[in-house]
């Protein structure tokens, strides 16, 4: 069984945020506005996070694109009282927002703060709903949502592959962020297949994970900057 994972090469990443916008466009994430932004309520499944280290003049800024880590041991899943967030046998941590009761325990338990909550009913300005992706649900008021590695693409890819009577190829399924990444800093694939590009890169000595010591075993692996 495949274990889907992502490798992000920070050395190649130019922090252009194409992935961030691609994610918004692909997954029907509602627009933010000045009010929601001021209150810290913007929804981003994928965000560019600045880690600023050291003081002037030795300032170092590390810019890290941060999707859901799709942990192998996700802290969010253990705490959900209704099973609205679960990990699939292929390692994708999904959010079933039709079942979610909006208690926000998972958001509070996630050490990476990747989950978002719909504080209001998501709104689209008149006419803008035409840009909605027909493959992805529009969420409701009061539920939690999160990065799903664009698993609707997996559903479609698998459907197509099965129908055509073949195995899922390595390029059949990639999330929107990886597809758009201009500097090709993001890789996506099967971590369980030792020959896959991601698996090879994940063994690199530059590889690290966010908050590794928590034992969450993220399936998003970063490659550090530098030689």
């Amino acid at each position: 069984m495949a274990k889907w994972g992502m490798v992000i090469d920070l050395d190649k990443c130019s922090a252009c945020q194409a992935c961030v916008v691609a994610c918004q466009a692909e997954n029907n994430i509602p627009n933010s506005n000045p009010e929601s932004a001021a209150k810290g309520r913007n929804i981003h499944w994928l965000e560019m996070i600045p880690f600023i280290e050291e003081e002037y003049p030795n300032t170092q800024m590390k810019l890290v694109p941060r999707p859901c880590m799709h942990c192998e041991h996700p802290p969010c899943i253990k705490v959900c009282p209704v099973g609205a967030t679960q990990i699939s046998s292929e390692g994708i941590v999904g959010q079933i927002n039709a079942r979610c009761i909006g208690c926000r325990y998972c958001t509070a338990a996630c050490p990476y703060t990747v989950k978002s909550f719909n504080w209001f009913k998501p709104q689209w300005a008149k006419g803008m709903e035409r840009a909605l992706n027909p493959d992805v649900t529009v969420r409701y008021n009061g539920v939690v949502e999160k990065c799903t590695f664009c698993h609707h693409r997996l559903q479609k890819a698998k459907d197509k592959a099965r129908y055509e009577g073949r195995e899922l190829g390595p390029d059949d399924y990639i999330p929107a962020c990886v597809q758009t990444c201009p500097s090709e800093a993001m890789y996506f694939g099967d971590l369980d297949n030792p020959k896959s590009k991601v698996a090879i890169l994940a063994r690199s000595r530059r590889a690290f994970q966010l908050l590794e010591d928590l034992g969450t075993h993220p399936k998003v692996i970063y490659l550090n900057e530098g030689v």
Partner: protein
Amino acid sequence: MRQNLFKTIFFTLVCIFFIGEGAGATEQPIQYNHYKHTQELELECSMCHQGVKDKVRATIPSVEVCIECHSEPVTDSPEEEKIREFYSKGEEIPWQRLFRVPEHVFFSHRRHVTVAGIECENCHGDMAKRTKPPSKAPMKISMNKCLACHRKLQAKTDCVSCHR
């Protein structure tokens, strides 16, 4: 006195229940006879529901599909005439959908019908044998039913396999 109160409440609830149910009944624009088409004429389901085998969605036939056979009267049923009426007006027949999975469910017909070889009856009940359009889906589709079958056939039961 108190007994009456309980009776009232009970009655009200029953009323609401039925009103609610009544609203769900669907009236089709044409009294389509599935039995005649599928059993007597032995037509394939996919002849009209053209997506069944190779598309994600089965699709409800458009008027062009009907008119292929019914451009000239085949029977003396007054219902048949309606097809040509719609066609001549250039309108689609306003069929009402009975089977509907919620928006957050990904369901592919080709995967179930072609790849897994599931019979139509498993989900659609005796639809093919109905002589009149039913007012409700002959079989209710629920997640439990999906799961029961998936477990039986040892198919995936991951939430994200179907939910999007």
